[in-house]
């Protein structure tokens, strides 16, 4: 399929809506739309998680083998959630359909499909709400914007609520703060009650429940990966790296997204963590039981999110650590920052996080007791606790992609920039409408990062790809930095497609390159094994500022 996809073809987006009204476009043709949806969850993964209505089915089959009373199940589920979530009820009632959200969605920008306008995506649910729960909908029917939940409507739910990455960009622009992520999350959990869901959400969730991580790496596999990484870090630096795993009594437990253990380019970020924590002499432990920072439960249901998230505190309590440090991940931090404190009982067995190196108390995490590694590292850098040689990153001309969740679900914007600026001489921001709170999704979040969904991913990746290409043209940017495991997994494909020649890397990879470690050998290559050019040491030091100026001049000219 990838061969058939061409940027020129995808770029010609037709934004003109169809002639037929949006309720009358007929059922989705899943054969004709291959490349735009995801395969169904496997029975095994569903059984493992005790989910209802398990069966073998695929979206392209005519008969989805729904339970006989599926409409009742959906109605009851909807009713329950309207009583549980004020967000849902208010967002069903108050949208004025002003359309300010429309062109804020990366999937709409890339596909032109009107049902990818956040407002219309939500209307898919709102129309059913008006039909089932409001007087006006009941009286005026279709003219009142009401729609009966039938097979065609359900298939649209499945199609479009799995074309939303829950990135919340629309919610920034909505005059009432209507959050499509909230609507998508609830639509998805309603569909799970009918046994409808996608495999790329459910198998990772089942894996995580069983092995502690999405990839299903068993404990010895986690140990192997880390040992391998430690060996490599030692080889690069000549320093014997201190580390431990499942160790009781450590001061800090560290949790990273599991892709960091061996996926590329995540792996170089892992090297960065190992080197940094060793260099500052951090008393910390990795863990196999809670070996996953991410939480695909967020893309599944509130209940699944809680089931998976529980491991973090249970493991922290078992190991007797004082607080938890978390790695570079996007949706992980939505869960940790906005949900974990509520999902779990108070973490009274932990202490308010305090950096053992700088003494900084992380007041903003005093209840949840979990700190983002970028907050931790920015604090180290601010207090000059680590020695950095940014010239070791001079071969990288960097830009930074804010991941959706840390940006809009956390407000973590400056910390990574502080780290990047300390580690890299060449840093250029993308246009302001594409970064910080206005950042664009990679197009593959919320469980949509599959091969079978490649066309929609590339469409959704257009705004990000275009912004990168812009800084590439302006400043010769050659690496897109980010702090999200899904970004690292999926942005390389987006870059190859929309901004070819751009690498993707984690922020802590830049630390790993720049970090001057005690007793290190001469570093002739970066973490990726790219050899540094041999230069006279004086010129080497003078180069970066000179180069930066040239960059500035170029930009001004």
């Amino acid at each position, binding site marked *: 399929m990838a061969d058939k996809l061409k940027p020129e073809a995808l770029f010609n987006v037709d934004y003109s809506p169809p002639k037929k009204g949006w309720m009358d476009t007929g059922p989705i043709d899943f054969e004709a739309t291959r490349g735009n949806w995801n395969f169904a969850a496997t029975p095994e993964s569903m059984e493992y998680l005790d989910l209802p209505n398990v069966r073998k089915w695929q979206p392209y089959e005519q008969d989805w083998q729904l339970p006989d009373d599926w409409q009742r199940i959906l109605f009851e589920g909807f009713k329950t959630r309207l009583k549980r979530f004020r967000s849902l009820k208010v967002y069903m009632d108050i949208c004025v359909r002003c359309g300010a959200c429309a062109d804020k969605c990366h999937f709409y920008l890339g596909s032109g499909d009107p049902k990818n306008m956040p407002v219309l995506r939500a209307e898919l649910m709102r129309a059913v709400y008006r039909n089932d729960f409001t007087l006006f909908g009941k009286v005026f029917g279709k003219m009142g914007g009401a729609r009966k939940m039938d097979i065609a409507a359900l298939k649209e739910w499945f199609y479009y609520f799995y074309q939303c990455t829950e990135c919340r960009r629309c919610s920034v622009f909505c005059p009432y703060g209507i959050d499509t992520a909230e609507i998508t999350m609830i639509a998805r959990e309603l569909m799970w009650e009918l046994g409808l869901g996608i495999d790329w959400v459910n198998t990772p969730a089942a894996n995580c429940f069983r092995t502690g991580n999405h990839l299903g790496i068993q404990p010895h596999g986690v140990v192997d990966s880390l040992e391998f990484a430690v060996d490599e870090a030692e080889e690069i630096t000549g320093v014997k790296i201190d580390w431990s795993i499942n160790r009781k009594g450590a001061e800090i437990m560290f949790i990273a997204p599991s892709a960091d253990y061996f996926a590329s380019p995540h792996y170089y970020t892992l090297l960065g963590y190992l080197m940094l924590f060793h260099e500052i002499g951090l008393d910390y432990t990795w863990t196999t039981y809670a070996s996953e920072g991410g939480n695909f439960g967020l893309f599944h249901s509130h209940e699944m999110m809680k089931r998976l998230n529980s491991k973090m505190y249970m493991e922290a309590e*078992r190991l007797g650590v004082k607080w938890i440090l978390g790695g570079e991940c996007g949706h992980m931090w939505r869960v940790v920052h906005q949900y974990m404190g509520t999902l779990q009982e108070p973490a009274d067995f932990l202490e308010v996080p305090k950096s053992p190196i700088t003494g900084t108390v992380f007041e903003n995490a005093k209840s949840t007791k979990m700190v983002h590694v970028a907050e931790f590292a920015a604090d180290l850098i601010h207090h000059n606790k680590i020695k950095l040689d940014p010239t070791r990153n001079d071969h990288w001309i960097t830009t930074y992609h804010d991941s959706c969740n840390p940006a809009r679900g956390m407000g973590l914007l400056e910390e990574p920039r502080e780290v990047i600026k300390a580690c890299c001489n060449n840093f250029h921001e993308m246009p302001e409408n594409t970064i910080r709170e206005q950042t664009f999704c990679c197009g593959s979040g919320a469980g949509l990062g599959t091969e079978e969904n490649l066309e929609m991913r590339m469409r959704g990746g257009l705004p990000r790809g275009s912004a990168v290409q812009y800084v590439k043209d302006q400043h010769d940017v050659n690496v897109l930095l980010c702090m999200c495991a899904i970004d690292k997994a999926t942005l390389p494909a987006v870059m190859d497609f929309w901004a070819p020649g751009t690498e993707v890397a984690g922020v802590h990879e830049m630390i790993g390159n720049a970090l001057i470690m005690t007793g290190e050998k001469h570093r002739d290559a970066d973490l990726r094994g790219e050899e540094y050019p041999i230069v006279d040491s004086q010129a080497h030091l003078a180069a970066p500022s000179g180069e930066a100026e040239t960059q500035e001049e170029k930009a001004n000219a």
Partner: protein
Amino acid sequence: MRLGFALIAVLILIAIPLLTAGMGLGLVFGVIIPYLALAMFIFGFVVKVLRWARIPVPFRITTTAGQAKSLPWIKRAPLESPYNGWETFWRMVLEVLFFRSLFRNTVSELKGGRVLYGSTQWLWLAGILFHYSFLVILLRHVKYFVTPTPGFVNVLQNVDGFFQIGLPILYLTDVFFFVGVGYLFVRRVVMPQIRYLSLANDYFPLFLLMGIGGTGVWMRYFYKVDIVSVKELAVGLFSLNPAVPEGIDPLFFTHLFLVSVLIAYFPFSKLMHMGGIFLSPTRNMPNNTRAVRHVNPWDYPVKVHTYQEYEDEFRTVMKAAGLPLDADPEGDGKSEATNG
């Protein structure tokens, strides 16, 4: 069709009082319907808001639109990412009074192989013009309900008619009202995407507002109705001592009837965004969930996979990998952490 349906509905609503109010139905259009509508508005609005307010907010899902409070030396954006109730209050003030989020609006286009973004505040401006003009017009109407006319109404009138154009003096808010409502309507019709997603429920209030504004303007500038008897009716209504004086023109009853329809329709419609914005969890909550625990009132226990179960399943491989065990039935009870 949806537009037509809404238009016809409003035309019918205009025709009813215009044609029938003169047939001795003054009491119906002048007293019964306005009272009924007001009751529906107040009751409907309060019930709706109370119902919303009764529903729990299980999670603190603030949308952050700026730097959060974190390390002390990092400059933060208290209004975009509020940390406490006070900052959240000001965020809401900006949102409610100045439509902060809508002000951010951008327009995008694909051009020359790029996605381009531009700033666009027209929708914001039209929204502001409409809402504030409507408010001023409403306040100006106080002079009809109470005697003597309160001072602030005179001030408002003087400011509103500052340019002294025409006779009777043209109120600027009358113009702004039509510009605002007109823009909201025209963009809904002209922009294909917006037209595509618009429902009859979106056109109906716009036509209704045009009808209300139209009849009002007609009476003020072109077709004088007997203002003394109108005021007598209004004062009577507001002092709960209603009486219908003779000589009230059907045009006035039409105006009053459309207002009645609007307020009766209000609580059942999207117009409730007026109340809903105050209860939007992404805006009215501080972004401090890691610092202050938020409680979900309907939280329930879920099935989890305990460490014990995990170790039971993986004990052999864990042992082989040198991982410490909590329970080692076949081992020597010694456990050691792997250290590199």
